[in-house]
């Protein structure tokens, strides 16, 4: 009994030791902010079946830079009270529709800033009496901005709506489209009423619209002298990555004093053997990652395995089933039968089916995010943000993720029907569909070893995003390409003017699971871990620490053993001498 007690108390001492281990990490650097006065924005829209899709979400992303308070409503459901507290009203006519009388009346009496986009604006009557609606089709291949009308920005032909301005005096043209020698007014203002003559706001249009939105929100757009936030992200760092490559890159970045992000995947799945490798299998990598975390690197969780079925880590999609182009509504080896409402007898059966699917996806994502955060935190690696593998995730996925992370890195999948519909905002933003998460968009792509022009394209994209005030310049690099390729890449990046490299630690982040709470602020990471709970949740977490201690003990053994060998050799020699002396 006595011995048992002693053993128990040893165990508790050990746990206590782990709990009191130093938990904060410090670093330097500062950063600027945005949405200071956080206006309330309401967006009324006309769309197919009144559903929100990629079009509305794109607008959401562009507006999210100016406010965290954005509400979407279909035109048929707008009430007077929706207007009462709105600082800005947007109407997005993505689909042609006869608008309700009441809504038109509300707009005509609304005194605040009103922005109308796309179709149906003619129905607002006198608010747009300066516009002549000509046709629904026009193509442009160049854009000029009001503050720099001589600088033309060319791109592939893009469709817009064709309008003319009937009254020049009060109307300002913020953006003008060009096709050959013909000019098309694209974004215009008359006092506090704006009109954007386009039904979709895709890239590259989004770049210019984003910049012009500064006018709407009472600030002046880019003048080419302001600084741009930017980041470099080391992508797909999983347990089988070569630590030497990583360390080589880390040292270059530390030397240049450039903060950066590391997209870390905690588990590597071998596609052939199906074996799983964790970072605990590679102490060298953990050491490297800790070095990076201390020297300018910030960790971003990049999924848990970066694969769903049996594809290789880093290749596969984790939160989207690409084979069926749908969210993860089933287990990996389950046969997928896609059912429609017609397959069910009653509506409630169908709803039940949908509910089950959502529940499955929810627990799947929750499990992987929890494991990802806790596993890394257990190693002393603290993720500050999340990036979904291949940027794919459903809308529900973003909602679930927002319970764990306050920051999202990369691009956003805008449709629940097709993963390929994805986009980045040109600047940092908090769209409403991220449920409070802040997006640090990736805007310039990556070093593709297959493409000899990859670097040029990245620079091209970077320059494009520097058109926008606060436009983000962010790209990523796969460390397996090696230190030399990275040298080339970083040299090109450094040539870009006016970039302020983001240090995640300097911003506010909050990462949470049941057992782990990570807060980053002003260069400090504060971690609260319920170690007891963590160790109870999986033996692996405790065993990692035990192994580390055991390994140290074994090295201790080796030292004692080595000393003993030396001592024995010495004593043997002394004995031999003694016999020689005695003449035996």
């Amino acid at each position: 009994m006595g011995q048992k007690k002693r053993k128990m108390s040893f165990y508790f001492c050990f746990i206590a030791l782990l709990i009191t281990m130093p938990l904060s990490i410090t670093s330097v650097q500062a950063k600027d902010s945005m949405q200071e006065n956080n206006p309330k924005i309401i967006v009324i829209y006309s769309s197919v079946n009144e559903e929100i899709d990629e079009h509305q979400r794109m607008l959401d992303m562009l507006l999210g830079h100016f406010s965290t308070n954005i509400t979407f409503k279909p035109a048929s459901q707008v009430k007077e009270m929706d207007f009462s507290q709105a600082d800005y009203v947007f109407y997005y006519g993505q689909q042609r529709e006869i608008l309700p009388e009441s809504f038109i009346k509300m707009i005509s009496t609304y005194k605040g800033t009103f922005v109308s986009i796309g179709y149906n604006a003619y129905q607002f009557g006198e608010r747009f009496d300066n516009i002549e609606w000509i046709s629904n089709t026009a193509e442009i291949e160049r854009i000029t901005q009001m503050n720099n009308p001589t600088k033309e920005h060319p791109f592939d032909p893009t469709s817009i709506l064709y309008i003319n301005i009937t009254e020049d005096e009060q109307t300002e043209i913020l953006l003008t489209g060009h096709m050959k020698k013909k000019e098309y007014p694209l974004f215009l203002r008359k006092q506090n009423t704006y009109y954007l003559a386009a039904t979709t706001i895709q890239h590259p249009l989004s770049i210019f619209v984003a910049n012009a939105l500064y006018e709407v929100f009472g600030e002046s757009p880019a003048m080419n002298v302001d600084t741009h936030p930017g980041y470099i992200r080391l992508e797909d760092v999983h347990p089988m990555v070569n630590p030497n490559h990583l360390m080589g890159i880390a040292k270059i970045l530390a030397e240049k004093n450039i903060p950066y992000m590391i997209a870390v995947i905690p588990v590597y799945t071998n596609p052939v053997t199906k074996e799983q490798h964790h970072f605990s299998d590679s102490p060298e990598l953990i050491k490297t990652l800790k070095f990076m975390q201390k020297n300018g690197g910030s960790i971003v969780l990049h999924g848990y395995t970066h694969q769903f079925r049996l594809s290789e880590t880093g290749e596969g999609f984790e939160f989207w089933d690409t084979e069926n182009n749908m969210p993860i509504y089933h287990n990996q080896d389950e046969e997928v039968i896609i059912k429609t409402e017609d397959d069910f007898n009653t509506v409630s059966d169908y709803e039940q089916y949908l509910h089950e699917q959502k529940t499955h996806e929810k627990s799947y994502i929750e499990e992987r995010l929890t494991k990802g955060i806790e596993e890394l935190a257990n190693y002393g690696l603290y993720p500050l943000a999340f990036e979904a593998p291949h940027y794919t995730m459903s809308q529900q996925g973003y909602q679930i993720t927002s319970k764990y992370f306050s920051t999202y890195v990369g691009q956003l999948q805008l449709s629940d029907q097709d993963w390929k519909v994805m986009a980045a905002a040109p600047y940092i933003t908090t769209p409403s569909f991220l449920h409070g998460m802040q997006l640090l968009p990736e805007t310039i792509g990556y070093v593709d070893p297959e493409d000899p022009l990859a670097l040029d394209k990245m620079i091209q994209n970077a320059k494009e995003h520097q058109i926008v005030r606060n436009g983000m310049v962010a790209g990523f690099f796969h460390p397996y390409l090696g230190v030399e390729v990275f040298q080339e890449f970083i040299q090109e990046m450094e040539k870009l003017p006016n970039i302020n490299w983001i240090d995640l630690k300097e911003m506010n982040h909050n990462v949470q699971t049941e057992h782990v709470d990570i807060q980053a602020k002003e260069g400090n990471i504060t971690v609260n871990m319920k170690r007891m709970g963590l160790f109870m949740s999986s033996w692996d977490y405790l065993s990692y620490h035990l192994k580390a201690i055991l390994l140290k003990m074994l090295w201790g053994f080796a030292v004692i053993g080595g000393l003993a060998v030396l001592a024995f050799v010495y004593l043997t020699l002394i004995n031999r001498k003694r016999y020689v002396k005695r003449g035996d």
Partner: protein
Amino acid sequence: MIEFFLYSSLFTIWLMLFYHLFLMLGGYLFSIKHQQVNRSLPKDDTSLPIVSILIPAHNEEMVIKETIKSMVRLQYPKDKLEVIIINDNSMDATGTITDEYASKYEFINVIHNKPPFAGRGKSGALNVGLRQSSGEIIVVYDADNTPEPDAVRNLVLELQKDQKAAAVVGKFRVINHNKNLLTRFINIETITFQWLAQAGRWFWFKITSIPGTNFAIRRSVLEELGGWDVKALSEDTELSIRVYNLGHYISFIPTAVTWEQEPETFRVWWKQRTRWACGNIYVIQKYLLRFHKLKRKRIVIDLIYFLLTYFLFLGGILISHILFVLRLFFDFNLSIGLVSYVLLILGFLLFVTEVLLALSMEKGQLHRSNLFHVVLMYFVYSQLWLCLMLYSLCKEMKRTLFKQEVTWYKTQRFKGKLD
């Protein structure tokens, strides 16, 4: 799971290695201390007690003559000496040879042990001898031993000097060590055993175990214990434990030397060692379960040592061997890395240097060919030991399960030139 095995095997192996390292250091320190103490033994014979030397002999015609001759050569007052040869049902010429000497020398006596009293093994024979003896101190030699002339005298003087010691153990050396590779290995083994285990334990814990030959024990103690345990296969280990349990201790003196013949063929070696190993396992079984009943807890150290050697160390080495072999074929993706190789090499170096240190304490044993033998021993002899232990464990387990009777195997002797 694999990692768990690896770590636990490394830990047990290294804990044992540390214990041995510690013992070896004790052995070395003892040798230094003993050199200083040993210079002052009295020359006076008048106070020497009567000594009975018991020599159990069963079919020992090949070696018994030399043994008796060495008795004659003993530098001990013959009027205080009584040599009792227990001819235990020999089928060969042992009886006639011993009778011949008994008629020539008065201090030599022979007991011819015939059925139904014979064939009870060494313990039984010793008990018979004990009953017939009259000495105050009992000394035991195996029938293949040729003690040096001052061996008995040194044993007895030590007992006289140290009144608290119940028994005193001398050192044994291998007489046929140059015969072949096996006897060379055994020679190195016995030297290491005595400096590491005997001297080392004596120095640190005041524990030695009776090796079955070349020891002296007080008659009073033997009587108190009721003689030898006839069931015990290794009567020496068993006796040691009982002596300690009485509250006495056994001391070790390296100056009482006997030379004994060791097995010259693998088959004989295997049989002899199997008997020892089974005997030790019997002792562990017997005392481990009655652990708490042992009055003297000091001996517990030894029991634990046995237990660790026979089960944990053996297990550790086995697992480590298996993993080593498996790792040649499969990649377990173990995170342990470099340290396991460092420990592997250090383990080997520790073995070599420990043995060399022990050899350096014996005159003329530290030479180049022995260095080669020590290295070879690690890869051959030590691995054989592993097989032997496994075999003995199985055998003893079988015996316990089927409640088989103990049969005593007598080590086969070899006729040889005695040097």
